[in-house]
């Protein structure tokens, strides 16, 4: 065997090894980010489960907001149906956050409701779920950042292009969520 053949074989096997390693790394990072997304889903579901309680405990008092309460119940059943795509989930989730934030602000007008044990407990549960949700979003963002780094950086970007790994979107903290934070501070 001539030297050039050996060199070609060596280079080819090196490239093959590299591509296997990089491919596996990309798959692992993609799975991690998908896994993180699933945890957001689980937390969102936990939050949806609180909606019937929220509606039940506030509707007696909040007659003016009955439209909002109906909307949120409807959105909840849509979210629970499980037929939505990821993007739809995110946008519906944002709408629900906004509606819940609205209800929490409206509660300020009903001191009796605000002071009831039932509601205080519910608000604590909501705070907890919000905080867990935000934690899982941060975990997702960190997993996606790792994945995106690999997709964009040399040399793994070459393989990412070849094998069809695409960049993922980060979760942006929406305006509605920032408002939720304000609601938390009102509670203090």
């Amino acid at each position, binding site marked *: 065997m001539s030297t050039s053949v050996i060199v070609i074989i060596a280079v080819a096997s090196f490239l093959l090894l590299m591509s296997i390693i990089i491919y596996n790394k990309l798959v692992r990072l993609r799975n991690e980010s998908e896994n993180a997304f699933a945890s957001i889903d689980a937390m969102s579901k936990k939050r949806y489960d609180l909606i019937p309680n929220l509606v039940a405990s506030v509707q007696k008092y909040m007659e003016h907001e009955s439209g909002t309460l109906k909307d949120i119940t409807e959105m909840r059943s849509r979210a629970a149906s499980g037929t939505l795509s990821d993007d739809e989930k995110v946008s519906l989730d944002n709408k629900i956050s906004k509606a819940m934030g609205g209800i929490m602000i409206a509660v300020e007008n009903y001191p009796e409701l605000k002071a009831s044990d039932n509601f205080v407990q519910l608000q604590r*549960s909501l705070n907890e779920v919000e905080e867990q949700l935000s934690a899982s979003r941060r975990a997702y*963002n960190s997993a996606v950042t790792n994945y995106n780094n690999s997709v964009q950086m040399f040399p793994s970007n070459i393989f990412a292009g070849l094998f069809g790994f695409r960049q993922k979107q980060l979760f942006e903290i929406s305006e509605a969520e920032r408002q939720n934070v304000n609601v938390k501070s009102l509670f*203090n």
Partner: protein
Amino acid sequence: MKTLSEFEIFYRNELNAVLIDLDARRRRMVKRTFLIITLMCLFVPFSYIIVQILGEGFEDETRIYAFLILSFIGLSAGLIIMTKWARDKTFYSDFKKEIIERIVKFVSPELNYDGKSYVNYDSFRNSRIFMKSADRYRGDDLVHGMLDKTKIWFSEIKAEYETTSTDSDGKTSKKWHTIFKGLFFVADFNKHFNTSTVVLPNRLGKGPLANFFNKINLTRKEKHISLEDPDFNKQFVVYSMDQVEARYILSPALMQRLTSFKQKHKPPMYISFVNSLLYVAIAYKRDLFEPRYLSKIADYQKIKQYFEDIHLAVSIVEELNLNNRIWTKE
């Protein structure tokens, strides 16, 4: 929370008089001890002279024995007198009771002090901060109580392990190594969680190489997690069993609080969150809450140190906002 200027007033009004009394006792103790040691030193040549004078005519061997016996009796008597007459048996416990306990009560009347107890070994192990198990574990000065809604307890502890080595002659020697010495603080955290998250000082700094080495951690099962706050990452490395739970505990607000808490205090700080408890270990080279024997104790600068050490531990509750109970944990 009490301020330093409030402490200064408290020191002048309440502690100073007690300290002057204690200082008199300390001085007496030191004087008597020195006196006895001097006498003991003088006794050895003195007994030699006695033996030389009285033992004339006796054999050398007898005289040597007589000298040794006489010195032995003299030195033993000295030691007995030292413990009976010079040592003030209650000085140490009085100091703890009159000074340390008062300072603890001054910092917060809700706190209790027990000079002989300490944070137990189980808590030390459960914290998962130090992975090496200790062969010797000691401590003292337990402070415990409920600050508003948060239960806390802390003490000074020292955990050590032993190694045995054999040299070329076949002699084995034992050596003690310190795992941790300093203040160990435990508090009931304001959120529920079931796994463990450990926050250690970042000794390696920033950059890809530091990151790489921080990631490799063979001793613990927790995985390295990089969080979003760059200032926090500069100070700490985080390992956790659960990505999401770690972020649930270490909210952006808590990361900022930890960073600023760390910046205010020099000593290395190890933090962990395990099963809804918060553990903070602050390493010190010096002994905490101990009286000094050879220098004046009625000294504001020295007593201030005790206050600051207790204050630092207690301030964790406020600094980390542990009384903020807006989640389901009451």
